[in-house]
């Protein structure tokens, strides 16, 4: 028995969870959990503050990784076989349709949740100093998510995939000077073919996941270093602009001083860093507000995880991922549509190639990246930032309207046809 206890002790290396020390050590001593602080603010955990969108996005990504690796075992990235492998998944592989559906719906879900997460961060003003650059990383994560979804779209090699990518890459090629070359580099040719499938596969299973994992690590780490989640707007102190101080950030305080090392004390960061070691001035009431991450935060996160997983599983049980006919370059569907999240751009392209293919996407990305530096207003209170909220809401609504119009209101020949009007396919 002693041996077992010893082995257990060697693994967990912490005090029992019945003690406060044990609870904090559970978090600190564990490589997987140490991104959490030992204690978090009770109010920060409220559902209506974050809707747990960041976590849900992350959990969807975990689902995508696991199902994606499983799918890789059944997939060959060459034109005729790729499609046959899809058919095999559908008809022969045990739980194949379920696996593919989970991957598909989790991918769509991730695109949606990343976007909603961005909206939440904007509306709560959580991108403000010192979190400006984390917002920028977030924008890159959004772009990576879109790229992952887009590259994955081609892999089934059916008509839907083929033409969505053809249209999608055409939108990109409207960029001046480099557009054409960029498209050629991506496709490995002038049109979507064998080379394009292989390149998209490499991007989808190797390059982009690596990048997104690296950036996610930085994203999480910075959240932690910036003092955890931002305070809910309703907890902001009245009449006092919040100053957040990052540990290690230089301040206008006396230069670094280090005292002589005392023998009976281990060196900690506390001793070498000057300035306020904690991100906010902690009043006794606030200290009362703080709860241990374990179990308060962990259980909530676990619940978010279970909701995500069960949700995706339930959808996948009843709705299978679509699979159309084998890709046929000679047969253009009418209308050929890009993946839904690019349909807003396609809608713009249908009015003006320059506007939809170049100006709008470039402006959108630049505007998103510039937000934390352009918005000099230090206040996070909604009443102080009406303009910003209005502008961002217009941006969100415009995007949604364009996507809805492109998805549901565009029929053959890109004609404006409401979804409730049934179009009889003509001579074709």
């Amino acid at each position: 028995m002693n041996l077992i206890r010893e082995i257990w002790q060697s693994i967990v290396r912490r005090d029992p969870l019945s003690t406060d020390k044990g609870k904090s050590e559970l978090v600190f001593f564990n490589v997987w959990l140490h991104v959490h602080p030992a204690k978090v603010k009770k109010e920060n955990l409220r559902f209506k503050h974050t809707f747990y969108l960041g976590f849900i996005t992350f959990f969807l990504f975990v689902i995508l990784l696991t199902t994606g690796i499983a799918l890789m075992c059944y997939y060959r990235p060459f034109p005729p076989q790729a499609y046959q492998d899809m058919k095999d998944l559908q008809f022969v592989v045990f739980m194949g349709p379920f696996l593919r559906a989970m991957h598909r719906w989790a991918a769509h879900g991730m695109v949606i949740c990343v976007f909603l997460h961005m909206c939440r961060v904007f509306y709560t003003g959580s991108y403000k100093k010192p979190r400006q650059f984390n917002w920028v990383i977030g924008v890159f994560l959004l772009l990576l998510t879109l790229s992952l979804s887009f590259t994955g779209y081609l892999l089934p090699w059916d008509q839907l995939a083929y033409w969505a990518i053809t249209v999608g890459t055409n939108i990109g090629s409207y960029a001046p000077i480099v557009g054409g070359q960029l498209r050629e580099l991506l496709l490995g040719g002038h049109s979507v073919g064998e080379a394009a499938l292989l390149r998209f596969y490499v991007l989808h299973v190797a390059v982009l996941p690596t990048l997104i994992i690296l950036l996610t690590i930085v994203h999480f780490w910075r959240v932690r270093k910036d003092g955890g989640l931002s305070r809910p707007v309703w907890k902001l102190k009245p009449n006092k602009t919040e100053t957040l101080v990052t540990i290690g950030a230089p301040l206008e305080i006396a230069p670094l001083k280090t005292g002589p090392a005392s023998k009976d004390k281990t060196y900690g960061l506390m001793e070498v860093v000057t300035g306020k070691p904690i991100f906010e001035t902690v009043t006794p009431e606030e200290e009362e507000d703080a709860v241990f991450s374990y179990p308060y935060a962990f259980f909530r996160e676990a619940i978010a995880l279970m909701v995500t997983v069960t949700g995706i599983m339930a959808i996948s049980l009843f709705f299978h991922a679509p699979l159309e006919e084998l890709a046929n370059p000679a047969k253009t569907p009418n209308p050929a549509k890009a993946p839904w999240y690019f349909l807003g751009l396609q809608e713009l392209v249908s009015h003006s190639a320059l506007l939809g293919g170049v100006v709008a996407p470039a402006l959108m990305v630049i505007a998103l990246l510039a937000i934390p530096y352009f918005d000099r207003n230090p206040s996070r209170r909604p009443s102080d930032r009406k303009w910003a909220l209005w502008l961002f809401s217009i941006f969100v609504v415009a995007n949604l309207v364009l996507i809805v119009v492109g998805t549901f209101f565009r029929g053959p020949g890109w004609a404006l046809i409401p979804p409730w009007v049934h179009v009889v396919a003509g001579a074709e």
Partner: protein
Amino acid sequence: MRSRLPQIFFALSTLALVLIVLAVWQASTPSWKTYQRNFLQLEAQGEPSAVTKAAVLATPPEIHQVMLTGLQRVDRCTTCHLGVDDPTMKNAPEPFRYHAGLGPHIPSRFGCTICHGGQGLATEKDAAHGKVDFWQTPLLTRDYIRASCGRCHKEGDVPGVPELTEGRHLFETQGCRGCHKLNGVGGSIGPDLTEEGANRRSPEWLEHHFIAPNAVSAGSPMPNFHFTSEQARALTYYMLSLTNEEMGTYYSSVRLIPSPEYGRQLFVEKNCIVCHAIGGIGAKSGPDLLGVTKQHSPEWLDEQLVNPDLVYPGSSMPEYDLETNARKALVAFMTSATPQDAQEILSGKGHTLTPEDAAIEAGKRDFARFGCAGCHGTELQGGLPNPNAQGGEVPSLLHVSDDYTKDEILAVIRNGRAPPLDKASGPTPPLYMPSWKNLLSEEDIHHIVDFLWSKQQKSKESW
């Protein structure tokens, strides 16, 4: 707050477990397993002892498939259609019934979908029968299934399927190529027909379309050719057989079935009667062919057809460069040939052509083959409606030499032209003259003009 969290977590975990069980259950109860169980029960009925019965029933379920690399397909139909090659299942209920009358088309070499259509990869009924969205070739019904013979047997007659021969003949003589491309040759006014049989269009639709194009496809510029229902059926068969699939040599070698009828056709085409006689009827330069198959083995005859000089050094018989099945067809014809055949062949032969007439004949053939007849009519009468073109119809070519010089017409054929408009503001007429210079050789174009002018002179004489 604290007390409820573990309960919610536990409830959700239970839900996740239930969902996983559901997913496993969904995946482990496919309909084909039920079919296999039913089939085993059917098989077990015929077993004499309880021991063998139990052994049959204990067969584990598995997916059956025929890998057909030469046909680029995998057919899993036999996963449910388990009695296809088992004659004892002659009276079994579907899907277990034995498939009689397959002849040389054994399932292990041909699978099912090459003839029947449907989705070979699927293991679920509706999907396998192709009656789902996004599958181009659903099962063919009894009325149309013989069209599939034309997928492999692309040339000559197919015994039992006269519709295919008729359909091909109509296609080449009615000028379909004027508007439609087939294997790269033809106009581009109508859709390319190279893979028409692989398109999801029901045979009924096609047949209807040939009888009344505008009734099924509103606004189609395709004129009504007033086909009879037999002709429409024949063309439908031909269209269904056009799939442009790549086939392995095992399958493509029977492109042409070596039938005596085809042999006779070749005999006429290659003018054998000019040197040979059958039972004394015909020429005497070569040996009489009556009973030749009794004197020589088929191999000997075949060798003779490949290289006459090798068998009889100094033989005056030319090499005809015939493919294997064409040679077999000729031998088959010779087995049954009679003096009456020779008589018929001789009487069907006209006088020898002068070079001018030969050019006109070639022009006439090209006119039909490249589809000019489709719009301008087999008798050059024109007259197809073409809204908003001058005169409202495709021009007749009967009086073309009154209005144009030969060079002008040559230029029109080479470069094509849009018809002059009736009303400048009206819509573009659906039919137009395509440019032919990339599809026809200069020689062909000249032949066609010669043919047009020859018609002209005749009508002048009759004037």
